[in-house]
């Protein structure tokens, strides 16, 4: 049996490892465009200089030896021939597979803003190459525009904030991290970054990039008519799935990305998918779980994905931590919003008919995981006779035979 895994991030690394745990004798090949194994969620720590490349590795240094996996790195998959079961690589090599896991992830999308796609120094923050390019540029630039104030954009700001650059964040929403935070929680970060000299242009649209004769960016024009000086633009306005190599195959994709079911199966036998390549729920834990689940089903061990709660995240910028779960803005008047705050902490819970639908914790996140489970599993909390902010596991306490907890 030869398993081939495409991609060396959360899904691919966990998928290949799981295949080895389930099948001691199989041949496992992992193909990656990346030359290193690294966690893309902490690339801003590489930009800021607090981590080197080695410290970005999340798989353990001896991963490929330990799990006896052949790694073909720095090579892109060009084509997947699902009839012959062959993968063609950018180095002209062809690899035959019995079963393949597609965990090829996604790439930054550069929006169609005039001149943006042809200019130099336009970088998305997704891959180590991007982070390296950004880091290299720091020495000879002064003005940076970060386009998009989602988690990737603010990660980029966090990575650059101590280099003395003139940073401007341009965002269409009226606050930063609009998917994760409400106005209050977002304003705390805006204030902290402001104090570090970061400028925010919120509720605006980028319209045109002025470039010089050498295609170097000069100024980004926004819809107010204002021009923002820039030598480098970090584009953090979303991603597109890496599915180009599937276009001549019968493998089904949609406008988001690769289609696979809760077992990781695509429409073609022996071809599985996991992670961000689906274009849905692009968060680390989902990618890890999908990789593990697909690998189990590839090895004949039936396992089904049950966790589809994807709107959850934590962040920790400038010493202020936040957890964001589910709905963070009141959907309508049938929901109830409760808020508890002091100078350093902010907690908000949105609930309705005994169920919690969303929460923000900012400041102290201690023991906050309980809320994730209550929201994900839609657990009725009306039996708990405590203030909603004090709910803990005690009212659900239940022990399984193997002494693990359950609900």
């Amino acid at each position, binding site marked *: 049996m030869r398993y081939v895994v495409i991609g060396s991030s*959360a899904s691919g690394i966990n998928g290949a490892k799981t295949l080895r745990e389930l099948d001691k004798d199989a041949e496992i090949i992992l193909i990656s465009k990346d030359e290193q194994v690294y*966690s893309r*969620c*902490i690339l801003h*720590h590489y930009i800021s200089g607090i*981590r080197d490349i080695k*410290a970005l*590795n*999340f*798989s*353990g240094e001896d991963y490929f030896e330990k799990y006896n996996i052949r790694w073909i790195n720095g090579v892109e998959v060009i084509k997947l021939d699902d009839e012959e079961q062959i993968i063609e690589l950018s180095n002209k090599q062809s690899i035959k597979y019995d079963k393949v896991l597609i965990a090829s992830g996604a790439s930054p999308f550069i929006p169609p803003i005039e001149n943006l796609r042809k200019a130099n120094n336009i970088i998305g923050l997704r891959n180590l190459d991007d982070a390296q390019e950004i880091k290299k540029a720091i020495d000879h630039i002064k003005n940076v525009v970060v386009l998009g104030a989602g988690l990737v954009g603010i990660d980029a700001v966090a990575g650059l904030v101590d280099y003395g650059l003139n940073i401007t964040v341009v965002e269409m929403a009226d606050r930063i991290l609009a998917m994760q935070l409400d106005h209050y929680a977002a304003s705390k970060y805006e204030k902290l970054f402001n104090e570090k000299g970061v400028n925010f242009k919120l509720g605006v649209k980028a319209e045109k990039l002025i470039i010089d004769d050498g295609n170097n960016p000069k100024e980004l024009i926004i819809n107010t008519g204002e021009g923002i000086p820039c030598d480098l633009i970090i584009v953090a306005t979303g991603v597109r799935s890496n599915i180009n190599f599937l276009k001549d195959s019968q493998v089904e994709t949609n406008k988001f990305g690769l289609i696979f079911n809760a077992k990781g199966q695509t429409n073609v036998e022996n071809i599985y998918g996991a992670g961000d390549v689906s274009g849905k729920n692009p968060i*680390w*834990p989902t990618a*890890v*779980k999908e990789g*593990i689940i697909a690998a189990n089903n590839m090895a004949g061990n039936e396992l089904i994905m049950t966790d589809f709660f994807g709107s*959850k*995240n*934590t*962040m*920790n910028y400038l*010493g202020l*931590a936040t*957890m964001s*779960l589910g709905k963070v803005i009141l959907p309508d008047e049938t929901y109830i919003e409760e808020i508890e705050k002091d100078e350093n902490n902010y907690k908000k819970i949105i609930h309705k008919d005994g169920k919690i639908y969303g929460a923000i914790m900012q400041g*102290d*996140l*201690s*023991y*906050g*995981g*309980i*809320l*994730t*489970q209550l929201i994900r599993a839609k657990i009725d909390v009306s*039996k*708990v*006779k*405590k203030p909603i902010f004090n709910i*803990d*596991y*005690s*009212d659900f*306490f239940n*022990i399984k035979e*193997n*002494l*693990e*907890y359950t*609900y």
Partner: protein
Amino acid sequence: MKRIKIDRDKCIGCLTCTTACIISHGSADNRSRVVIDSYGKYAPIFCRHCEKPECVYTCMTGAMKKNQDTGIVEYDKDHCANCFMCIMACPYGVLKPDSVEHKVIMKCDMCQGTESGSPSCVKKCPMNAITLEEV
């Protein structure tokens, strides 16, 4: 693997386990706790070192790992990026950051770092409410 068995009915909320935990780790914080439910009953909350550990699945640095030999979910504070995704991921609300620097995850290590290598809370519990069992 061995897990700490919790006999909730025997717990009298004396917090000897909490104290033992703090001392065993030379820490300002506890890695386990005892909470009270809506009816005044004690509930000892201890890391279960889960078979399918959410904290491990969600760790983006590899700092949180399940040791397949011992079953213990191990945490490497030096590799941790303080993103706190594990705090969010634990369905039972076991994890928190340390209260001094707000950086290190207060994660039960079954007292692996101590001389005896076995949980101090279990040894000190006067009620036998927590015991070490092979599962």
